[in-house]
Protein backbone atom coordinates (compact mmCIF):
# COMPACT_ATOMS: atom_id res chain seq x y z
CA UNK A 1 0.00 0.00 0.00
CA UNK A 2 2.88 2.35 0.78
CA UNK A 3 4.08 2.18 -2.81
CA UNK A 4 1.14 4.34 -3.75
CA UNK A 5 2.60 7.26 -1.78
CA UNK A 6 5.90 7.11 -3.67
CA UNK A 7 6.50 9.48 -6.55
CA UNK A 8 5.54 7.82 -9.82
CA UNK A 9 9.02 7.46 -11.39
CA UNK A 10 10.45 5.91 -8.26
CA UNK A 11 7.56 3.48 -8.07
CA UNK A 12 8.12 2.45 -11.66
CA UNK A 13 11.79 1.79 -10.94
CA UNK A 14 10.90 -0.22 -7.89
CA UNK A 15 8.42 -2.34 -9.82
CA UNK A 16 10.91 -2.92 -12.61
CA UNK A 17 13.56 -3.93 -10.09
CA UNK A 18 11.10 -6.17 -8.32
CA UNK A 19 10.22 -7.90 -11.58
CA UNK A 20 13.86 -8.36 -12.36
CA UNK A 21 14.53 -9.99 -9.02
CA UNK A 22 11.27 -11.94 -9.07
CA UNK A 23 11.72 -13.60 -12.42
CA UNK A 24 14.67 -13.25 -14.67
CA UNK A 25 17.73 -12.87 -12.50
CA UNK A 26 16.93 -15.10 -9.50
CA UNK A 27 20.28 -16.77 -8.76
CA UNK A 28 20.50 -20.57 -9.21
CA UNK A 29 20.15 -22.16 -5.71
CA UNK A 30 23.46 -24.00 -5.94
CA UNK A 31 24.08 -23.90 -2.21
CA UNK A 32 20.66 -25.39 -1.46
CA UNK A 33 21.29 -28.06 -4.08
CA UNK A 34 24.61 -29.02 -2.47
CA UNK A 35 23.04 -28.99 0.99
CA UNK A 36 20.09 -31.18 0.08
CA UNK A 37 22.30 -33.61 -1.84
CA UNK A 38 24.56 -33.88 1.22
CA UNK A 39 21.52 -34.56 3.41
CA UNK A 40 20.33 -37.27 1.02
CA UNK A 41 23.75 -38.92 1.22
CA UNK A 42 23.70 -38.67 5.02
CA UNK A 43 20.31 -40.41 5.06
CA UNK A 44 21.69 -43.19 2.85
CA UNK A 45 24.71 -43.56 5.11
CA UNK A 46 22.59 -44.08 8.24
CA UNK A 47 20.60 -46.75 6.39
CA UNK A 48 17.37 -44.81 5.81
CA UNK A 49 16.49 -47.25 3.01
CA UNK A 50 16.22 -50.07 5.59
CA UNK A 51 13.39 -48.49 7.57
CA UNK A 52 10.05 -48.08 5.74
CA UNK A 53 9.24 -44.62 7.14
CA UNK A 54 12.76 -43.28 6.65
CA UNK A 55 12.90 -44.83 3.17
CA UNK A 56 9.71 -42.97 2.20
CA UNK A 57 11.20 -39.60 3.15
CA UNK A 58 14.51 -40.45 1.52
CA UNK A 59 12.62 -41.20 -1.70
CA UNK A 60 10.65 -37.95 -1.45
CA UNK A 61 13.91 -36.04 -0.94
CA UNK A 62 15.54 -37.68 -3.96
CA UNK A 63 12.51 -37.00 -6.16
CA UNK A 64 12.45 -33.37 -5.07
CA UNK A 65 16.15 -32.92 -5.76
CA UNK A 66 15.54 -34.28 -9.27
CA UNK A 67 12.55 -32.00 -9.67
CA UNK A 68 14.59 -28.97 -8.52
CA UNK A 69 17.34 -29.72 -11.03
CA UNK A 70 14.76 -29.84 -13.77
CA UNK A 71 13.32 -26.52 -12.60
CA UNK A 72 16.82 -25.02 -12.58
CA UNK A 73 17.30 -26.29 -16.10
CA UNK A 74 14.05 -24.59 -17.06
CA UNK A 75 15.32 -21.36 -15.43
CA UNK A 76 12.76 -21.42 -12.60
CA UNK A 77 15.34 -20.94 -9.88
CA UNK A 78 12.90 -19.59 -7.32
CA UNK A 79 10.66 -22.67 -7.40
CA UNK A 80 13.77 -24.82 -7.45
CA UNK A 81 15.01 -23.16 -4.25
CA UNK A 82 11.83 -24.03 -2.38
CA UNK A 83 11.67 -27.55 -3.74
CA UNK A 84 15.25 -28.02 -2.53
CA UNK A 85 14.26 -26.77 0.92
CA UNK A 86 11.50 -29.40 0.92
CA UNK A 87 14.02 -32.02 -0.17
CA UNK A 88 16.37 -31.01 2.61
CA UNK A 89 13.60 -31.22 5.22
CA UNK A 90 12.66 -34.71 4.00
CA UNK A 91 16.27 -35.91 3.97
CA UNK A 92 16.85 -34.62 7.50
CA UNK A 93 13.69 -36.34 8.65
CA UNK A 94 14.86 -39.57 6.98
CA UNK A 95 18.14 -39.35 8.94
CA UNK A 96 16.31 -38.83 12.23
CA UNK A 97 13.82 -41.63 11.56
CA UNK A 98 16.61 -44.07 10.68
CA UNK A 99 18.53 -43.13 13.82
CA UNK A 100 15.40 -43.44 15.91
CA UNK A 101 14.72 -46.91 14.51
CA UNK A 102 18.23 -48.15 15.22
CA UNK A 103 18.24 -46.61 18.71
CA UNK A 104 14.96 -48.37 19.43
CA UNK A 105 16.44 -51.62 18.15
CA UNK A 106 19.46 -51.26 20.39
CA UNK A 107 17.31 -50.40 23.40
CA UNK A 108 15.12 -53.43 22.73
CA UNK A 109 18.18 -55.65 22.45
CA UNK A 110 19.58 -54.39 25.76
CA UNK A 111 16.21 -54.87 27.44
CA UNK A 112 15.89 -58.41 26.04
CA UNK A 113 19.38 -59.23 27.27
CA UNK A 114 18.50 -57.94 30.72
CA UNK A 115 15.28 -59.92 30.73
CA UNK A 116 16.91 -63.19 29.71
CA UNK A 117 19.65 -62.67 32.28
CA UNK A 118 17.07 -62.14 35.00
CA UNK A 119 15.04 -65.16 33.85
CA UNK A 120 18.19 -67.26 33.83
CA UNK A 121 18.87 -66.13 37.36
CA UNK A 122 15.48 -67.37 38.54
CA UNK A 123 15.98 -70.80 37.04
Amino acid sequence: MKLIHLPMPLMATAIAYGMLVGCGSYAPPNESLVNSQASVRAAQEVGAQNNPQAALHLKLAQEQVDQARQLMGDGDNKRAEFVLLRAQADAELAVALAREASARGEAQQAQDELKSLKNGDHR
Partner: protein
Amino acid sequence: MIRGLQIRLLAGVLSVGFLVGCGSTPPPKELIEARAAYQKAQAGTANQVNPAQVHVAKESLDQAEKAYDNSPGDAETRDRAYIALRKAQLAEAQAGMMVAERDREQAQKDLQSTQLAMGKKTERELETARHQLVSEHQALEDERRRTKEALDNLAKMAEVKNDQRGMVITLSGQVLFASGAAALLPAAMSALDNVVTALKANPDRSITVEGHTDSVGQRTYNMDLSQKRADSVRTYVVSRGIPSEIIHAVGVGPDRPVANNGTADGRANNRRVEIIVSPPERK
Protein backbone atom coordinates in the same frame (compact mmCIF):
# COMPACT_ATOMS: atom_id res chain seq x y z
CA MET B 1 -5.75 16.37 -1.10
CA ILE B 2 -8.88 15.09 -2.77
CA ARG B 3 -6.78 12.74 -4.84
CA GLY B 4 -5.07 11.49 -1.68
CA LEU B 5 -8.45 10.80 -0.10
CA GLN B 6 -9.59 8.89 -3.13
CA ILE B 7 -6.47 6.82 -3.04
CA ARG B 8 -6.98 6.07 0.63
CA LEU B 9 -10.51 5.05 -0.06
CA LEU B 10 -9.31 2.80 -2.80
CA ALA B 11 -6.73 1.37 -0.46
CA GLY B 12 -9.42 0.66 2.13
CA VAL B 13 -11.60 -1.11 -0.44
CA LEU B 14 -8.59 -3.07 -1.65
CA SER B 15 -7.63 -4.18 1.84
CA VAL B 16 -11.21 -5.29 2.52
CA GLY B 17 -11.04 -7.25 -0.70
CA PHE B 18 -7.74 -8.69 0.48
CA LEU B 19 -9.25 -9.73 3.76
CA VAL B 20 -12.20 -11.37 2.06
CA GLY B 21 -9.79 -13.05 -0.29
CA CYS B 22 -7.80 -14.47 2.60
CA GLY B 23 -10.84 -15.76 4.36
CA SER B 24 -12.14 -17.49 1.30
CA THR B 25 -8.92 -19.40 0.52
CA PRO B 26 -8.90 -22.48 2.79
CA PRO B 27 -5.53 -23.44 4.25
CA PRO B 28 -3.64 -25.99 2.14
CA LYS B 29 -3.59 -29.51 3.52
CA GLU B 30 0.16 -29.16 4.20
CA LEU B 31 -0.61 -26.31 6.61
CA ILE B 32 -3.38 -28.23 8.34
CA GLU B 33 -1.01 -31.19 8.77
CA ALA B 34 1.82 -28.94 9.94
CA ARG B 35 -0.42 -27.35 12.60
CA ALA B 36 -1.51 -30.76 13.85
CA ALA B 37 2.05 -32.14 13.84
CA TYR B 38 3.31 -29.12 15.75
CA GLN B 39 0.47 -29.40 18.29
CA LYS B 40 1.38 -33.04 18.85
CA ALA B 41 5.09 -32.32 19.26
CA GLN B 42 4.43 -29.36 21.51
CA ALA B 43 2.06 -31.24 23.80
CA GLY B 44 4.02 -34.48 24.01
CA THR B 45 7.36 -36.04 24.88
CA ALA B 46 9.16 -34.12 22.12
CA ASN B 47 8.72 -30.84 23.98
CA GLN B 48 10.06 -32.40 27.19
CA VAL B 49 13.19 -34.03 25.76
CA ASN B 50 13.79 -31.97 22.61
CA PRO B 51 12.45 -28.43 23.21
CA ALA B 52 15.03 -26.78 20.93
CA GLN B 53 13.84 -28.64 17.85
CA VAL B 54 10.21 -28.06 18.81
CA HIS B 55 11.04 -24.38 18.86
CA VAL B 56 12.57 -24.63 15.38
CA ALA B 57 9.34 -26.32 14.24
CA LYS B 58 7.37 -23.47 15.79
CA GLU B 59 9.39 -20.85 13.90
CA SER B 60 8.94 -22.79 10.68
CA LEU B 61 5.19 -23.00 11.27
CA ASP B 62 5.05 -19.26 12.02
CA GLN B 63 6.68 -18.57 8.67
CA ALA B 64 4.16 -20.80 6.95
CA GLU B 65 1.28 -19.06 8.73
CA LYS B 66 2.68 -15.68 7.67
CA ALA B 67 3.02 -16.84 4.08
CA TYR B 68 -0.54 -18.10 4.25
CA ASP B 69 -1.71 -14.73 5.60
CA ASN B 70 0.10 -12.86 2.82
CA SER B 71 -0.45 -15.10 -0.15
CA PRO B 72 -2.68 -18.01 0.77
CA GLY B 73 -2.81 -19.62 -2.64
CA ASP B 74 0.89 -19.53 -3.47
CA ALA B 75 3.01 -22.61 -4.05
CA GLU B 76 5.51 -21.04 -1.70
CA THR B 77 2.93 -21.10 1.10
CA ARG B 78 2.45 -24.81 0.57
CA ASP B 79 6.22 -25.29 0.50
CA ARG B 80 6.67 -23.48 3.79
CA ALA B 81 3.84 -25.49 5.36
CA TYR B 82 5.37 -28.71 4.01
CA ILE B 83 8.73 -27.77 5.55
CA ALA B 84 7.04 -26.85 8.86
CA LEU B 85 5.33 -30.25 8.88
CA ARG B 86 8.68 -32.00 8.36
CA LYS B 87 10.32 -29.92 11.12
CA ALA B 88 7.63 -30.98 13.59
CA GLN B 89 8.04 -34.62 12.52
CA LEU B 90 11.81 -34.19 12.87
CA ALA B 91 11.38 -32.99 16.46
CA GLU B 92 9.27 -36.07 17.18
CA ALA B 93 11.72 -38.49 15.57
CA GLN B 94 14.70 -36.95 17.38
CA ALA B 95 12.79 -37.12 20.65
CA GLY B 96 11.98 -40.78 19.95
CA MET B 97 15.68 -41.45 19.42
CA MET B 98 16.61 -39.68 22.66
CA VAL B 99 14.07 -41.69 24.63
CA ALA B 100 15.30 -44.93 23.04
CA GLU B 101 18.89 -44.05 23.88
CA ARG B 102 17.91 -43.31 27.45
CA ASP B 103 16.10 -46.67 27.63
CA ARG B 104 19.15 -48.45 26.23
CA GLU B 105 21.48 -46.76 28.72
CA GLN B 106 19.19 -47.68 31.57
CA ALA B 107 18.95 -51.30 30.40
CA GLN B 108 22.72 -51.53 30.01
CA LYS B 109 23.22 -50.08 33.47
CA ASP B 110 20.75 -52.58 34.90
CA LEU B 111 22.44 -55.32 32.93
CA GLN B 112 25.80 -54.42 34.38
CA SER B 113 24.58 -54.21 37.94
CA THR B 114 22.65 -57.47 37.55
CA GLN B 115 25.73 -59.19 36.16
CA LEU B 116 27.77 -57.78 39.00
CA ALA B 117 25.22 -58.94 41.55
CA MET B 118 25.06 -62.37 39.92
CA GLY B 119 28.83 -62.57 39.84
CA LYS B 120 28.94 -61.75 43.53
CA LYS B 121 26.23 -64.31 44.18
CA THR B 122 28.13 -66.99 42.26
CA GLU B 123 31.27 -66.04 44.13
CA ARG B 124 29.42 -66.37 47.42
CA GLU B 125 27.96 -69.71 46.39
CA LEU B 126 31.38 -70.98 45.37
CA GLU B 127 32.85 -69.80 48.63
CA THR B 128 30.07 -71.53 50.59
CA ALA B 129 30.55 -74.73 48.60
CA ARG B 130 34.29 -74.55 49.20
CA HIS B 131 33.75 -74.08 52.93
CA GLN B 132 31.36 -76.99 52.95
CA LEU B 133 33.85 -79.21 51.16
CA VAL B 134 36.57 -78.21 53.54
CA SER B 135 34.42 -78.91 56.58
CA GLU B 136 33.20 -82.20 55.11
CA HIS B 137 36.77 -83.18 54.46
CA GLN B 138 37.63 -82.12 58.01
CA ALA B 139 34.77 -84.20 59.38
CA LEU B 140 35.94 -87.20 57.38
CA GLU B 141 39.47 -86.71 58.65
CA ASP B 142 38.21 -86.44 62.22
CA GLU B 143 36.18 -89.57 61.77
CA ARG B 144 39.15 -91.45 60.38
CA ARG B 145 41.35 -90.19 63.22
CA ARG B 146 38.78 -91.19 65.86
CA THR B 147 38.47 -94.64 64.31
CA LYS B 148 42.21 -95.09 64.27
CA GLU B 149 42.48 -93.91 67.89
CA ALA B 150 39.70 -96.25 68.86
CA LEU B 151 41.41 -99.17 67.15
CA ASP B 152 44.71 -98.22 68.75
CA ASN B 153 43.08 -98.01 72.17
CA LEU B 154 41.29 -101.25 71.49
CA ALA B 155 44.56 -102.93 70.62
CA LYS B 156 45.79 -102.13 74.15
CA MET B 157 42.99 -104.07 75.81
CA ALA B 158 41.92 -106.44 73.08
CA GLU B 159 43.36 -108.50 70.35
CA VAL B 160 42.39 -107.41 66.87
CA LYS B 161 43.08 -109.68 63.97
CA ASN B 162 41.69 -110.47 60.56
CA ASP B 163 40.77 -113.96 59.52
CA GLN B 164 38.40 -115.47 56.97
CA ARG B 165 35.37 -114.37 59.03
CA GLY B 166 36.41 -110.71 58.87
CA MET B 167 37.84 -108.51 61.57
CA VAL B 168 37.84 -110.34 64.90
CA ILE B 169 38.12 -108.35 68.11
CA THR B 170 38.86 -110.56 71.08
CA LEU B 171 38.18 -109.15 74.53
CA SER B 172 39.39 -110.97 77.58
CA GLY B 173 36.61 -112.20 79.89
CA GLN B 174 38.48 -110.78 82.86
CA VAL B 175 38.26 -107.28 81.47
CA LEU B 176 34.52 -107.54 80.84
CA PHE B 177 32.92 -109.60 83.58
CA ALA B 178 33.28 -110.61 87.19
CA SER B 179 33.65 -114.34 87.68
CA GLY B 180 30.46 -116.20 86.86
CA ALA B 181 28.52 -112.98 86.16
CA ALA B 182 27.03 -111.66 82.94
CA ALA B 183 26.90 -107.95 83.98
CA LEU B 184 29.54 -105.74 82.38
CA LEU B 185 32.27 -104.30 84.58
CA PRO B 186 32.79 -100.52 84.41
CA ALA B 187 36.16 -101.04 82.73
CA ALA B 188 34.38 -103.14 80.09
CA MET B 189 32.37 -100.15 79.03
CA SER B 190 35.31 -98.03 77.98
CA ALA B 191 36.73 -100.99 76.10
CA LEU B 192 33.41 -101.47 74.33
CA ASP B 193 33.13 -97.74 73.57
CA ASN B 194 36.27 -98.08 71.49
CA VAL B 195 34.68 -101.03 69.74
CA VAL B 196 31.57 -98.99 69.05
CA THR B 197 33.62 -96.16 67.56
CA ALA B 198 35.41 -98.58 65.29
CA LEU B 199 32.13 -100.25 64.30
CA LYS B 200 30.50 -96.96 63.43
CA ALA B 201 33.18 -96.38 60.81
CA ASN B 202 31.87 -99.50 59.02
CA PRO B 203 28.11 -99.05 59.25
CA ASP B 204 27.17 -101.50 56.50
CA ARG B 205 28.85 -104.49 58.12
CA SER B 206 27.16 -107.26 60.05
CA ILE B 207 28.39 -108.01 63.54
CA THR B 208 28.39 -111.20 65.54
CA VAL B 209 29.10 -111.20 69.26
CA GLU B 210 30.30 -114.60 70.50
CA GLY B 211 30.59 -115.52 74.14
CA HIS B 212 33.21 -118.16 75.01
CA THR B 213 34.04 -119.94 78.30
CA ASP B 214 36.67 -122.35 79.56
CA SER B 215 35.80 -125.98 80.09
CA VAL B 216 35.47 -125.77 83.89
CA GLY B 217 31.98 -126.55 85.18
CA GLN B 218 28.83 -127.86 83.55
CA ARG B 219 28.52 -127.37 79.83
CA THR B 220 24.88 -126.17 79.98
CA TYR B 221 25.88 -123.60 82.61
CA ASN B 222 28.75 -122.42 80.43
CA MET B 223 26.52 -122.31 77.35
CA ASP B 224 23.96 -120.23 79.23
CA LEU B 225 26.59 -117.91 80.72
CA SER B 226 28.30 -117.36 77.38
CA GLN B 227 24.95 -116.50 75.76
CA LYS B 228 24.11 -114.06 78.56
CA ARG B 229 27.51 -112.44 78.30
CA ALA B 230 27.22 -112.11 74.52
CA ASP B 231 23.74 -110.60 75.04
CA SER B 232 25.14 -108.07 77.56
CA VAL B 233 27.76 -106.95 75.12
CA ARG B 234 25.20 -106.72 72.33
CA THR B 235 22.77 -104.74 74.50
CA TYR B 236 25.47 -102.30 75.53
CA VAL B 237 26.75 -101.83 72.00
CA VAL B 238 23.19 -101.26 70.70
CA SER B 239 22.62 -98.73 73.50
CA ARG B 240 25.63 -96.82 72.15
CA GLY B 241 24.09 -96.51 68.72
CA ILE B 242 24.93 -99.64 66.74
CA PRO B 243 21.73 -100.65 64.88
CA SER B 244 20.26 -103.74 66.54
CA GLU B 245 19.39 -105.38 63.21
CA ILE B 246 23.03 -105.73 62.11
CA ILE B 247 24.25 -107.36 65.32
CA HIS B 248 23.42 -110.69 66.89
CA ALA B 249 24.75 -112.54 69.91
CA VAL B 250 25.73 -116.20 70.15
CA GLY B 251 26.73 -118.29 73.19
CA VAL B 252 29.41 -120.77 72.14
CA GLY B 253 30.32 -122.00 75.64
CA PRO B 254 33.53 -124.08 75.91
CA ASP B 255 33.24 -125.47 72.39
CA ARG B 256 35.89 -123.36 70.66
CA PRO B 257 38.86 -122.98 72.97
CA VAL B 258 41.84 -120.96 71.73
CA ALA B 259 44.20 -122.24 74.42
CA ASN B 260 44.87 -125.21 76.61
CA ASN B 261 42.19 -125.57 79.30
CA GLY B 262 44.71 -127.48 81.38
CA THR B 263 46.55 -124.35 82.54
CA ALA B 264 45.32 -121.27 84.35
CA ASP B 265 46.67 -119.01 81.60
CA GLY B 266 45.05 -121.12 78.91
CA ARG B 267 41.67 -121.05 80.69
CA ALA B 268 41.96 -117.28 81.11
CA ASN B 269 42.51 -116.95 77.37
CA ASN B 270 39.54 -119.15 76.61
CA ARG B 271 37.21 -116.96 78.74
CA ARG B 272 36.59 -114.29 76.15
CA VAL B 273 34.16 -112.42 73.95
CA GLU B 274 34.81 -112.24 70.23
CA ILE B 275 33.26 -109.53 68.13
CA ILE B 276 33.35 -110.49 64.48
CA VAL B 277 32.81 -107.75 61.95
CA SER B 278 31.91 -109.28 58.57
CA PRO B 279 31.47 -107.71 55.16
CA PRO B 280 27.72 -107.25 54.45
CA GLU B 281 27.45 -110.04 51.81
CA ARG B 282 28.45 -112.64 54.42
CA LYS B 283 25.50 -111.75 56.63
